[in-house]
């Protein structure tokens, strides 16, 4: 199980501090939902935790079985992007299989087994040969979600996965997220227009006045 430790983290956007000298530890095996008035701060924070952005100041460490890592290179992680963020010049199938060629830590048999399972669960087999621009936003986001799940994640990040998705996809994603949660995978997520995560999050982190000020613990 992975915990994420933020140490004196500062995040700036357009020379303005969105977050200043923040300290917080995302506990291992818990589902943490981040809430804030500022939508961009939530996105930037989840991307910073997910190793996509480098904080302007401070340090992030990932703790796994007593070992500390400064990057996610040695940890399997999945990231669901707000827009799906699929590679436009490749087919949806190639989008799903691309990480397999680059990430040595992925178990290939397990990856392919899960791939076949998920494309059948989400009923997207007919779309595999299309390019991302040829399918709907909801389908793009579904593929982005499947791609993140395929990474055999020990930690899972979600940047507003449900918005613009059809209800059928949301329900299936919700089931998969619950499976991750029951497997004690650490989950850090935000959502903007929906409030599904309020029902399953272990912790809700409220960020106000440039700092993590309120933490509602164990809402269940």
């Amino acid at each position, binding site marked *: 199980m992975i915990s994420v430790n933020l140490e004196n983290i500062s995040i700036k956007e357009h020379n303005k501090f969105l977050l200043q000298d923040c300290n917080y530890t995302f506990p291992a095996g818990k589902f943490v939902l981040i809430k804030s008035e500022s939508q961009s701060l939530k996105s930037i924070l989840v991307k910073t935790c997910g190793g*996509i952005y480098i904080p302007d100041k401070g340090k992030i460490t990932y703790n796994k079985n007593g070992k500390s890592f400064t990057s996610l*290179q040695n940890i399997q992680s999945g*990231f669901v992007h707000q*827009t799906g963020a699929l590679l436009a010049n490749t087919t949806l199938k190639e989008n799903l299989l691309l990480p397999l*060629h680059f990430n040595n830590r992925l178990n290939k048999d397990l990856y392919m087994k899960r791939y076949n399972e998920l494309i059948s669960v989400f009923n997207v087999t007919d779309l595999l040969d299309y390019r991302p621009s040829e399918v709907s936003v909801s389908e793009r986001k579904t593929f982005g979600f499947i791609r993140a799940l395929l990474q055999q994640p020990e930690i899972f990040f979600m940047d507003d996965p449900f918005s613009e998705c059809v209800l059928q996809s949301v329900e299936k994603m919700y089931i998969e997220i619950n499976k991750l949660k029951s497997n004690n995978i650490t989950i850090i997520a935000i959502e903007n227009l929906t409030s599904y995560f309020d029902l399953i999050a272990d912790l809700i982190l409220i960020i106000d006045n440039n700092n993590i000020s309120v933490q509602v613990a164990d809402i269940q």
Partner: protein
Amino acid sequence: MLKKRYSNYLLKYGNFLSAVYIAVFNRPFKLGTLSKIVQRQIYFTAIQALGITIFSGLLTGITIMVQSNDVISNIAGNKLIYSILVSVITIELGGIIPSLIIIARSGTAITTEIGNMSVNHEIEALISLKINPIEYLVITRVIGVITSLLILVLFFNLSTFISAGFISSVFLNRDLTDFISLVIGQLTLLDIFTAFIKANVFGIIIATVACFHGLEVNRASTEVPQQTSKAVIISIGFIILFDIFLSLLRYEVLS
């Protein structure tokens, strides 16, 4: 102010080049997957540009032959024409014209593609999938552009010599065998080596500048054409600078 802007640019570009260098030498390549991208890059950059390159080469050969025959043969005799033909084509135009073709076709395409990827958060997706964008996007394009430029330089030079030989034998009534032996006689290994080095250096410049400007795009799609035009201007500037430098090195130091 201007000086600071240029030094900032060079610093950022230098940092980018060092990141490329580290990615080249510090990571084991996934050759299978990357070679497909390189092959695609060579197809778009070299194969699709062969027609225009050969056409430019043919016209260049005709122009040089007609102009130099008119001007030079009256002053210094025929032998100088071949000397000019070899040095102008092999060392100078043979590198520069294919480079300009690649900048116009593929340099702009690379910046636009990577810029759009930035806007659409595809670069972020690569990072989250633990795929190094430098390895996946930049190195493949550097290898592709260098290989393509070498191919285009070869075809440009050949087509120029062919058209020059054709003009020389058909319209200027010179013996084709003499033409071939005089051209080969003027061509030295150092000329070929200089052309090879120039093609490599120009290839690195075109690909890295195009990728660098593509990755400079942050949020808006309006940044894409701005960065593309910057990439074109800077690539041409760097190529002229390095062309002068390498020519000086060839004529002043190596010969």
